[in-house]
């Protein structure tokens, strides 16, 4: 009996694949992580099937790599030690939309576009992660703590996960939140420590396979207004941004540079479906990059469900006061930028058009405090000079978190994936930047790929305890081995 035949017994013949084409497809992604092949790719459609596969894997010491959509760009689903890629994309139901209590239960295969379209029918919306691909698994995206478009708002853009259901590495079913004490989900608080679901966030499927997630959703505002404030340099934006956040103006907020702005606006480019993607030369992009302001602060004010104009009015007044205080120009150079961003808040994937620049994007994403961002800007400038990488080819997005307590920074570096020398050069540069950033205290709280060693070697007891927990929960080390510090 082979692995594939055993799995076909459990999952059915049309759910298990070990042909070359399929194996190759699941062996790599657009990241720098070394491609490695699984032995089979298997599709589960029910929780019971997932459990059975996990039990089988324990019995036979076969690694499992949980996979939802494979669109995380950081190598999280590349099997380091072969085994089974357990594809959950067929578990794609939105099981419940609760209009009274504003929550929604999703399976791992539910995509961003699917979810948002469904919620819009109920006059609700999900606070989707910034830069999520429309076909990406929302469950996985939240599990990986990807900052949402409204991460700046303490209330609306953070702690989206409520109850969860997952399969532990030994195949046992486990739930967190209200769901754990009964039949239905309905709150993140559970009888087993109040925040236990956090253990599985950022875990890249190494400690359990999540099969359902109950998420908070919000109302669909009837009225919204986007404000665009332009700056010539990042440091100029710091104080105004701080003040906007202290006054809690708007929900969605981010700072993007002209590169990323231009790629969002560029009509020559579309959101790719596969990654890496085809490089598309665009004069329009070059012209936009030239003409758009070096930095744009985007703030979106959402009117309340009732009397929405009133809230937008006082927020607008508050923003104008800040603009006057700091002599900030708002952007009003025509074009459809305001509408573009209004759409982006609900469907935050237009920024993925940036992939069309060279075909592949390798980002360095980290968290720090607002006032340290210029420091990291200068560091990157030092390093790219050594590698002759043009400054203007870096796309930057800075998302304030929880009213400016911290910021999430994404620096994008571009290369032609078919040019091996260029890829190698970029990889070396990317590694050097990552290492230098980590040395200087940038927080890589999701240590994918090469970051894992860099981060965990510094985290002392934290790393040690994680390993001990992994040993207890997954003594056979079958779930995504080789990732993180495991």
């Amino acid at each position, binding site marked *: 009996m082979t692995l594939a035949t055993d799995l076909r017994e459990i999952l059915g013949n049309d759910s298990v694949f070990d042909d070359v084409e399929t194996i190759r497809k699941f062996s790599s992604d657009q990241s720098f992580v070394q491609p490695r092949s699984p032995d089979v790719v298997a599709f589960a459609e029910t929780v019971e099937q997932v459990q059975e596969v996990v039990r089988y894997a324990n019995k036979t010491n076969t690694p499992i790599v949980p996979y939802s959509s494979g669109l995380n760009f950081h190598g999280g689903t590349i099997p380091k030690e072969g085994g089974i890629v357990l594809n959950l994309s067929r578990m794609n139901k939105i099981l419940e939309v609760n209009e009274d209590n504003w929550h929604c239960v999703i399976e791992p295969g539910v995509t961003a576009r699917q979810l948002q379209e469904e919620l819009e029918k109920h006059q609700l919306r999900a606070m989707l992660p910034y830069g999520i691909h429309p076909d990406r698994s929302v469950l996985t995206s939240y599990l990986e703590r990807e900052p949402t478009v409204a991460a700046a708002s*303490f209330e609306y853009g953070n702690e989206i996960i409520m109850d969860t259901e997952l399969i532990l590495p030994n195949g046992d079913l486990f739930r967190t939140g209200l769901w754990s004490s009964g039949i239905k989900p309905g709150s993140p608080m559970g009888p087993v420590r109040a925040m236990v679901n956090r253990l599985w966030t950022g875990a890249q499927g190494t400690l359990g396979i999540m099969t359902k997630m109950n998420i908070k959703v919000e109302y669909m505002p009837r009225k919204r207004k986007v404000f665009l404030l332009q700056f010539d340099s990042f440091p100029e934006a710091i104080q105004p941004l701080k003040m906007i956040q202290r006054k809690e103006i708007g929900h969605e907020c981010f700072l993007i540079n002209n590169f990323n702005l231009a790629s969002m606006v560029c009509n020559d480019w579309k959101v790719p479906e596969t990654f890496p993607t085809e490089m598309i030369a665009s004069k329009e992009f070059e012209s936009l990059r030239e003409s758009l302001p070096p930095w744009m602060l985007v703030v979106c004010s959402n009117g309340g469900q009732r009397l929405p104009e009133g809230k937008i009015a006082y927020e607008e007044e508050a923003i104008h006061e800040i603009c006057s205080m700091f002599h900030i120009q708002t952007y009003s150079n025509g074009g459809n930028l305001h509408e573009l961003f209004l759409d982006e808040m609900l469907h935050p994937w237009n920024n993925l058009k940036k992939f069309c620049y060279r075909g592949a994007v390798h980002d360095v994403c980290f968290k720090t405090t607002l006032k340290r961002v210029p420091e990291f800007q200068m560091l990157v400038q030092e390093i790219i000079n050594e590698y002759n990488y043009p400054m203007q080819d870096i796309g930057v997005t800075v998302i304030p978190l929880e009213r400016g307590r911290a910021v999430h920074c994404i620096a994008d570096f571009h290369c032609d994936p078919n040019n091996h020398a260029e890829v190698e050069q970029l990889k070396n540069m990317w590694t050097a930047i990552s290492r230098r950033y980590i040395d200087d205290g940038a927080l890589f709280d999701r240590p994918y790929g090469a970051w894992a060693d860099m981060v965990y070697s510094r985290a002392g007891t934290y790393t040690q305890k994680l390993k001990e927990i992994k040993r207890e929960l997954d003594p056979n080390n079958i779930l995504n081995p080789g990732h993180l510090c495991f």
Partner: protein
Amino acid sequence: MSTKKQKVIQKKLPREVFNALRNVVGEQWIYEQRSVVETYSKLSIEGGSFVKKHDKDPHVLPAAVVLPSTTKEIQAIVKICNRYQIPFIPFTNGQVFCNPTNEQPTLIIHFSRMNKIIRIDTENMSATLEPYVDYGQLQAEAMKRGLWNGGSPLATTLCKLSSQFAFAGLWQTDLKYGLFNRNIISVKMVLPDGEILTTGSRCIPRAGDFWEYGPGPDLMGLQRAGLGTNGIVAEITVKLHAWVGEETFPEIPAGRPSLVEVHEPKYDNPPEPLKNHKLFWIEFEDFETQIKAMREIAHSGIAIGLNATGVYSAFYCSQTQAMTVERCEKHFFPDWNCYVILANVTSDKQIEQEEKVLRQIIGEVGGTFLSEEYKPEVLEALSPWNYDCIRHSTGYRMNRKFYANAWLPVGPMDSAVATSREWKKALEMFGECDITDRGGADDTPFVYALQRGHFCLFETDNYPDPVLPDEIRKAQGFGIYGAAVVTKQNLGPMLMAFVNAEPFTTMFPEAGPNSHLFMRKIRKVFDPNGVASPGRQVFTEEEWQKFPGEVKQVVNKMRSLQDLPAVE
């Protein structure tokens, strides 16, 4: 009332342990004298400690109390406990979950010497605290700097933030700022095995203490609500938010009380809330309307706080228990009500705008604002809330008799009605301990609207007489019965008392599922020698087998009342 005059004698630590501890903290900071350990044994709201006092059970007494002043000292103490297999219990105020958990001589580690605010970072809106810092202290210092931590628990501003990390963490402004869960950036824990674990960005050198997650799987969630079983919080960093009120609370015009007239209501009645804040009280005709209105208000996005106080105003706003009881009997305060706190966080036009929204909602759903024209005497009596809504100080008026047992299920707002129905049934089955138990029976549970209406928390409690152990036992029975109710009816895990503590996880194995098995593994990782309040959070299989049969019988009896099968 105990008539036995037999003495209760504590077990002492082995001499070498005592001496080793003394070498760590110094002679002055370790005590095993009888009167000292007495003051660390009867807790605030834990019925078990009262019953044990009535029963003259010596196991409620710790063997000794030690007071460290630094993380290093805490670590040294924990290592000694590991070496000699001495159970230890971290102790701040002594509200709940601080009694010894078994019959071994147990060490109390009291943090009263560690009460400094280490730093307030106004730039990144956070504060790093030693374990004995309380909400009032933090608020006072933060408010001077244009920041605050979002409120204070109903168990008052004297709660220490580190113990809220270990236990509960709710406050009046949950609507906007979420539970305490949402407001922790990092903890530096001395783990039960003596290691130091720092969570969040702080665990990465040079990153700074500003972000709560990672790297990778987040361990802070496993530390939270550990009830002293997973280590000791040596430092905690909490989030702060923008504060738009005054730096200090204005004096109440009526003046200050004295011992000759402490019960005059006027001293408790600030005429207004703080600058840039406004408080509204609304009365409803029935519970369903109240919940409907609360949901609408929460969903509308207005306000920083939204709570229905039920019977609690009868406590908090009454200067004596006699006043409380009279007001309950007369239904002086509206049975079905809520208060709403508005604040000018963004703009000085915000309250005006939000008030319009509030009035629109109440106009549609139904309800009456208390005002100068409608029940002004009730509004006047409710005025302690003008200050309590920000810095809660009157909370312990609930404990004039004894506040025992609490049903605090957390779940969707609709569950409030189901909860109060079950509470009524429980009162009919067991009988009330006091008229004020009827907080739930008259459909007046405390309802906190949390997190914009996604879920909320309700509370009903028993108030037995502390000198009557049978009444306390009755209240305890209510509590276990409540665990059966929430399990069977899917009303949500109970936050207090029995959630995150035995007997819930083992005796209600429906929870999770497999929660007790999961928790055993976690316990093994953090506390391999079983010294941190052993058995409080979860029993190992061996501990469970040794458990007294009578307790298992009571639990199974309560389970059967909800048609749940018995546990072995």
